C-alpha cells in the first residue's frame, strides 16, 4: 500500500478512517494529544468545567439542568456519576433504542437509572423503517449501524429543543481520543458537521432519501437534525467531559463496577470486557465489517488505548490484536433473522466489502487476510509478555437468558 505509515508508539496506521497525522518522529497525532493527559492540570480543568455548568443549574430544582445521552454500556455510568454526584446537576437521561440490545445492557441501563435515581427518556424508531435503512446501508456501505449512530447523536439534540434544556453532556470525543483530532485545550463542542462527517459517513437523514430509492421521508424524518434557528433559540450546546477530566475508560469502568455493580462480559473479538456490552452486534458483525473494510477492528482501538495508558507494550498490543481480530462472530443468526436476509446474502455482502488492500481471494469464496496487523514493521523477537491484561468479566451478554435481542425491555433489578 502506497505511503502506508504506522505510529511508532501505538498501532494506528496512516489510513485511519478519522484521519491521522504522523509527525517527523513517527508519532501519531492521537498519541501526541494523549500526552496532554499527563501534562495538563486536571484539577484546574475540572474547576473550569464547574464554572461552565454553573449557569445551567436551575435555581429551584424544578427543571432539568442538562441532558445526558446514555446506554447500557460505554462510560454511561461514569458520566452520570460525574454529572449528578460530582457536579451536582439534575440530568434528564436519554437513550436511543438500538434494538440489538443484550439482556446485560438492559440490566445495566435499568441499574443506571435506579442507582442514580434519574429520569430517562427512550426513543424507539419504528422498526420497519430501521430495518429498511439498515438493509440499504448494509448493502451499499457495509454498515449496520447508521440508524443507531444517527439516533444516538440526534435524539439528545431533539430532546434539548423540545424540553428546552440547552446543555447536553457527552463523555469523551471519539476524534480526540482516537486520532487526536483536537487538543483538550480546544474544548471542542458538539457540532452537526462532525456528526455528518464522521458518525454518519457523510450522510444525513435527507441524504439517505436521495441515495436510496427504497427509503422515503417517512423512514428518515426522525433522524433529522433540528434547524439552526431552533438550536439557537434554546441555546443548545453539547460539551465533552473528556476535555475536563482525565479520561481513562478502563479505570473508570472498574470504579463503576465496584461502586455501582456495572456488569461486564467477555467478547470473542476483543480483550476489553467493559465497552459495548449492551449490543449483540457492535463487537460482532459490525466489527467484522470494520475488519473487512478497513483492515483492522475494534481490538486495535482497545490496544492503542491501553498502550497509550502505559498498561501494555506495543508488542503485547499487537499480539492481542492478531489473536482477537480473526476470531469468529457469535450472533450471526440473530442479525439474519432481525434483518430478514439469508446467510448467503450476508456472505455476499461481507465479501463485497472486503478491501482488496487487505484481502486476497485465493480461491473462490476463500479469502486470505493481510491486514494492517500483518503489515506492521516486524517487532523484535522478544520474549512474549504473558502479562494478564486484567479486564474483569463479571457477567455475560445474555445473562443466562436466551441469546436474543431485547427489542424493548422494562429492565429488572
Amino acid at each position, binding site marked *: 500500500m502506497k505511503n502506508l505509515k504506522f505510529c511508532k508508539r501505538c498501532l494506528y496506521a496512516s489510513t485511519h478512517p*478519522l*484521519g*491521522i*497525522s504522523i*509527525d517527523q518522529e513517527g508519532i501519531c*497525532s492521537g498519541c501526541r494529544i494523549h500526552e496532554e493527559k499527563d501534562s495538563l492540570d486536571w484539577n484546574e480543568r475540572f474547576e473550569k468545567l464547574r464554572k461552565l455548568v454553573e449557569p445551567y443549574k436551575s435555581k429551584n430544582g424544578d427543571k432539568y439542568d442538562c441532558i445526558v445521552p446514555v446506554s447500557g454500556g460505554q462510560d454511561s455510568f461514569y458520566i452520570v456519576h460525574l454529572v449528578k454526584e460530582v457536579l451536582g446537576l439534575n440530568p434528564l437521561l436519554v437513550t436511543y433504542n438500538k434494538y440489538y440490545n443484550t439482556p446485560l445492557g438492559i440490566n445495566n441501563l435499568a441499574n443506571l437509572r435506579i442507582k442514580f435515581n434519574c429520569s430517562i427518556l427512550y426513543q424507539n424508531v419504528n422498526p420497519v423503517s430501521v430495518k429498511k435503512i439498515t438493509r440499504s446501508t448494509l448493502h451499499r456501505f457495509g454498515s449496520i449501524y447508521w440508524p443507531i449512530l444517527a439516533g444516538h447523536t440526534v435524539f439528545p439534540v431533539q430532546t434539548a429543543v423540545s424540553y428546552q434544556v440547552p446543555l447536553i453532556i457527552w463523555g469523551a470525543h471519539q*476524534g480526540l481520543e482516537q*486520532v*487526536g*483530532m*483536537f*487538543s483538550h*485545550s*480546544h*474544548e*471542542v*463542542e*458538539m*457540532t*452537526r*458537521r*462532525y456528526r*455528518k*462527517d*464522521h458518525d454518519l459517513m*457523510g450522510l444525513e437523514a*435527507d441524504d439517505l432519501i436521495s441515495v436510496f430509492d427504497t427509503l422515503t421521508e417517512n423512514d428518515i424524518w426522525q433522524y433529522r437534525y433540528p*434547524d*439552526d*434557528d*431552533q*438550536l*439557537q433559540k434554546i441555546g*443548545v*450546546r*453539547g460539551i465533552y467531559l473528556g476535555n475536563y477530566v482525565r479520561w481513562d475508560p478502563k479505570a473508570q469502568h472498574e470504579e463503576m463496577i465496584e461502586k455501582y455493580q456495572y456488569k461486564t462480559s467477555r467478547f470473542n473479538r476483543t480483550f476489553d470486557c467493559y465497552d459495548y456490552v449492551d449490543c449483540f452486534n457492535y463487537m460482532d458483525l459490525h466489527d467484522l465489517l470494520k475488519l473487512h473494510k478497513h483492515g483492522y477492528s475494534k481490538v486495535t482501538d482497545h490496544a492503542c488505548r491501553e498502550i497509550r495508558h502505559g498498561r501494555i507494550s506495543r508488542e503485547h498490543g499487537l499480539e492481542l490484536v492478531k489473536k482477537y481480530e480473526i476470531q469468529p462472530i457469535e450472533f450471526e443468526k440473530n442479525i439474519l433473522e432481525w434483518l430478514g436476509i439469508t446467510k448467503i446474502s450476508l456472505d455476499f455482502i461481507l465479501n463485497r466489502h472486503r478491501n482488496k488492500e487487505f484481502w486476497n481471494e485465493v480461491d473462490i469464496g476463500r479469502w486470505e487476510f493481510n491486514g494492517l496487523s500483518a503489515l506492521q514493521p516486524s517487532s523484535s523477537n522478544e520474549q512474549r509478555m504473558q502479562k494478564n491484561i486484567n479486564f474483569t468479566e463479571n457477567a455475560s451478554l445474555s445473562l443466562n437468558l436466551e441469546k436474543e435481542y431485547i427489542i424493548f425491555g422494562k429492565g429488572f433489578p
Partner: protein
Amino acid sequence: MIKKRIIGVVTVKNGWAVQSFGYKRYLPLGKPECLIENLDRWGADEIFIQVIDRSNSNLGPDFELLEKVSRLRLETPLIYGGGIRNISDAIQVIKTGADRISLDSTYRKMPDNIKVISETLGAQAIIISTPMSFDSGMLGVYDYQKLEISLDIDSTRDIINSGIVSEMLVIDYKNEGYKNSFNRQIIDGLMIKKKGSVIAFGGITEDEQVNSLLNLDIVSAVAIGNSLSYREHAIQMIKKNIENKTLVRKPIFQSLLK
C-alpha cells in the same frame, strides 16, 4: 455601506480538511465537502478553500475537489487557492466554480502573469496570499517553498496599490492555529494606503481580535480557520459579538431546509 466580512477557511492537505499550526503541524478534521457545506449553512460571508500541497508538487489546482464542491449547491461566494500556476489554471478554476482566486508563490515568480490574469478575470477576482512575520521591528514575507523570509515588501505594496489585485491575504504564519495570537504589528507595519484591501488571517480566535481588526480602515475582512471547527454556529457567534452591529452582516440561523 459595504459590510466587512468573516471568511471561513478550509485548509486541505492530501485530500483531507485539516487544522494547520504555524505552517508546520497538522491535525485532521474531515472531508473538505462537509466543512465547506457547513460554512455555507452557517452563512459565512465567503468560503476560502486553501489547498496547501499543490504548489510544492506542481500538480496544479485541485479540480476534482472543485467539481465535488460545485455539486454541493452552495449559495456562498467561494475563494480558491492552491496550485494556480498560470492564466489557464486561473480561468479553469473560475470555470469550475470559484468566484475568486488566491495566488501565492505564483505571483512572486511570474509578476507578468498576474497582470494578464487580472485583465481576464478582473481585479476583484484576485487575492494575493502572503505569509508574513514581524520580528525585531522588521516586516517580512515568508517563502514557504524556499523556507526563507524576504524583507522586500515593496513589490507586494505596489501590486496592491496598483489595483491589479483587489485584496491581500495577510497570514501571520507563525501564529496560525494558535489562540488569540495574530500579531497586529504586521498590519500596522504594512503601510498600505488603499482602504479595504487587507484580509487578516492566522491566530484569530477571539471576539476582541475580530473587533479590533475589523475596525481598521485597511482591513476588509478577517479569515478564520481551525477554531471554526471547535463549536457549533462559530461564525454566527462571532457576528453576534461584534460591538458595532452595522460593521458586518447579521448572523444567519437557517430555518429552511435546503
